[in-house]
C-alpha cells in the first residue's frame, strides 16, 4: 500500500498569500502537490463554516493564510480572521477535532519561500496525523439520517 497522501485545502487572501504563492512559483521553489488553493478576497471573508464543510467533504487538513497583522489590504480583515480562529479553535477542541489539522499563518506577497515551507510542514504534519474521517462520518450521518430521515 502506498503512503497516505493527505488532501489539504488552503484558504488564502488575494493580496498577500495568493500573491506570495505566485512568487513561490515565479521563484521556482518546489513544494508538495497536496495543497490546493482557494482564493478569497481577504481572510476576513472566510466563513469558518467552510472549514467544517471541507472536513465534512473529506479534507485531511486546512491552511488559512493572509496578510501579516497591520498589513491587511482592507485594513482589518486579517484581525477578524485571527479572532475567529481563536474562537473556532476552542470549538474544534470541544468537538474533538485535532487543531493541528488547521494551520493558521501569515504569508506576505514577498514571502514566496515561506509559503513553500508552510505547505511542506503542514503536509508532513497532517501525513503524520493520518487520514481524517471522523468528521466526515458525522457529516455523512447528518446528511443521510438527520436531513433525509
Amino acid at each position, binding site marked *: 500500500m502506498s503512503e497516505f*497522501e493527505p*488532501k489539504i*485545502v488552503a484558504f488564502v487572501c*488575494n*493580496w*498577500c498569500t*495568493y*500573491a506570495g*504563492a*505566485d*512568487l*513561490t*512559483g*515565479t521563484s*521556482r*521553489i*518546489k*513544494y508538495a*502537490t497536496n495543497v*490546493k*488553493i*482557494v*482564493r*478569497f*478576497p*481577504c481572510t*476576513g*471573508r*472566510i*466563513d*469558518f463554516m*467552510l472549514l467544517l*464543510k*471541507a472536513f465534512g*467533504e*473529506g*479534507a485531511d487538513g486546512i491552511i488559512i493564510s493572509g496578510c501579516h497583522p*497591520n*498589513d*491587511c*489590504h*482592507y*485594513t*482589518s*480583515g486579517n484581525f*477578524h480572521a485571527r479572532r*475567529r480562529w481563536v474562537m473556532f479553535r476552542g470549538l474544534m477542541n470541544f468537538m474533538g477535532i485535532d487543531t493541528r489539522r488547521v494551520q493558521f499563518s501569515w504569508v*506576505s*506577497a*514577498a*514571502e514566496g519561500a515561506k509559503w*513553500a515551507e508552510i505547505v511542506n510542514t503542514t503536509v508532513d504534519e497532517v501525513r503524520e496525523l493520518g487520514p481524517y474521517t471522523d468528521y466526515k462520518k458525522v457529516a455523512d450521518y447528518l446528511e443521510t439520517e438527520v436531513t433525509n430521515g
Partner: protein
Amino acid sequence: MSRIGVFVCHCGENISSTVDVEKVAQTAAGFDGVAYSVDYKYMCSDPGQSLIKQAIKDHNLTGVVVSACSPRMHEPTFRKACAEAGLNGYMCEMTNLREHCSWVHERTEETTEKAIDLVRMLVEKVKNDKPLEPIKVPIFKTALVIGGGIAGIQTSLDIANCGHKVILVEKEPSIGGHMSQLSETFPTLDCSQCILTPRMVEVAQHPNITLYTYSELESLEGYIGNFKAKIRKKAKSVDHSVCTGCGDCWTKCPSKKIPSEFNAGLDNRTAIYVPFPQAVPNKPVIDKDHCTYYQKGKCRLCEKNCKPGAIHFDLEDEIIEVEVGGIVVTTGFDVKGTDFFPEYGYGKYKDVITGLQFERLASASGPTLGEIKRPSDGKVPEKIVFIACAGSRDPAKGIDYCSKICCMYTAKHAMLYQHKVHTGKSYVFYMDIRAGGKNYEEFVRRAIEEDKVNYVRGRVSTVYEKNGKLIVKGADTLMNGQPVEIEADMVVLATAGVANCGSEELAQKLHVSYDRYKFFAEAHPKLKPVETNTAGIFLAGACQAPKDIPETVGMASGAAAKVAALFSQDELKREPLIAVVNRQMPPTFSSCVGCFLCETACPYRAIEREEIKDRAGNVIKTIAKVNDGLCQGCGTCVAFCRTKSIDIQGFTNEQMYSEVMALLND
C-alpha cells in the same frame, strides 16, 4: 444548463513541461457541464484569445475557465476577450496552473492530477458565476506625490506638465532629498546640485504643483480615482508668508550644536534652520526638540531679531484633507550608519565615515567646501581606504541584496579624491565590481587606469586605530588570500542602502505591500514595476529598492505616465466585486433581519440602513444596504452575517462552497 469552455494553456513549455496539458484538457471535457475543452500553446496570444472567442460563439458557451497563469496577471486579459465575444467578462475564471502548479512541482502524475483538481474547482465556481457590470466612478484628477527627492520632483513635474494638479508632500523642511547632498554624479561627474536645484525651483514655481514641506501623510481612505488623504503640516513656528528668508534668526540662534542632517552629521546646525542654502522653500523652521524656548521656556532670540515678525511659537500642527485620484510614493531610501559595523569600530572612530559623509566632504557646499579633510583633525588624508559592500550582500548582517549604487559611487569617490589630492593613495576593497549601465564600466576603468586607484579584491576583516592611523586588515583574494594591511588616514564605508525608517508605517497607511527589507513591493517584478498591488498607488525611485539617479528618474517618469493615463479618462470602471444584500419578494423583502453586525464589521462604513415601507409610508422593516461607492469588496461582512443575507459578488458563498466540494469530491 451550463455550457462551460475549458482552455488549457501550455505557456510555451512553462506549464506543459511538468503538467500533461492534453490529459488535463481531455479530462476536463468529461466534467459535468463542460461543452468544450482544448489545450493551446499560448492562450494569451492573439491566436489564443481568438480561439476562445471563436469557441464562445461556436459552442454557445455560458462560462469560460482559462487554465493558465495567475489571475493576478491575466484575468483582465481573458475577461476582456470574453466580453469581446459577447460573453459577460465576469463569467470567466482562471485556474492558476503555472505559479501554483507547474512551476512549483516536478513532472509527476500527481502534478497533472493537481492541475485537473484545480480545473474542476474553477469549473464548479464558474457555474455559479453571475454576469456583472463594472461600476462607474468619477476620477478626481489631482495626484498626490509623497516624497520630494529627485523621484518625487520628476514625477510631480511630469504630471503637472500634463496639465494635472499635483500635491507634493515632503517631510523635511526642503525638497531635494539625497540627491541634493551629493557632490558630483557618476558617470559624467556633473555637479549634482547644478542639475537638481533648477528642478527644485521649477517645482516651487509650477502653477499646477502645491508643495507641502515639513508635512507627512496622516491617513488615507478611499480607492483609485477617489482617495481622501489627510496631511499633517507640522508646525514650522515661522509664518512663511511673512518670512523673507533673510537669515537674521538662525545667525542669532544660541543652539548651535545640533548635528546637521544635510551634512550627514559632519557639522552642526542651529535650532531654527534652513537645511541648506539652496533649499526650496528657502525659509526656516524651528526644530522644537532642540529649541531652547520650546525645551526650557526661555530665549525667543529669533523672535526678537525677526524684523518682519514671522516667528510664531504658538503655531500648531495643521491637518488638511485633500481629495486625489492617484498617488505616487517616492520616499526614497536611507543608508546604514558606521555604528552598524562592529568590525569597523562601531562608529567610534571619527575618520571611519560613510559614503554619504564622503559626498558632503567632496561637495563644494559641504562643511569643508569641497576639500577632502578628515573629520578628526581636519588634515588632508594621504592614504584612504574605501570598503565596498559594507553591509550589502551580507546575510550575516541581514542584508542579502546588492545596494547597487555603491560600486559606482565608490569608484567616483576614489576618483574625486585622486583629483583633489594628487599625492594621495586610494585603495578600494571590493567583492565584485558591478558596473552595469551606460558608460559605467568605462568609468570604473578610468578610476583604475587613469586615476591609479588601487582595487583590491577581498573583504576587510577589521579596522582599528593605532598611533593616529587606521589599520585596515584584509585579504587579497586574487593573490591567494594573501593578508593585506594598510595604514590609512581615513576609511570610507559604502554602507548598505536600506528602506527609510518610516516606510513600514507608511505602507500600512497606504495598504500597499512591502518586502522583508521594508522596501515597497511592486505589483510585478518585470511587467508592473511602478504599480503597487493597490490600484491607483504607484512607486518610483529607491523606496522600491536601491537604485541610481538615471533609473530613479526613468521610473519617476514611468509612474507619472501611469497617473496621466489614469487621469485621461473621465470616469473609471471599477470591478463590481462588492457586497450586496439579497432582496426577496414580500412579505420578507430580504432574508436580512437587520441585526447590523455587518455595519460594525465593515472597515469602510459602506453599510447603510434601508427602510422598507408600505404604501402608507409605515416602516415595515429596516435592512442593510451596501453603498457601492464605498464598498471595497473585502467580504468581512459576509463572514459576519448570521442569515447569509449579504454576499460578495464574484466570491459568493455558493461559489466558494462549490469550489471546496469540487476539490474534495473527485
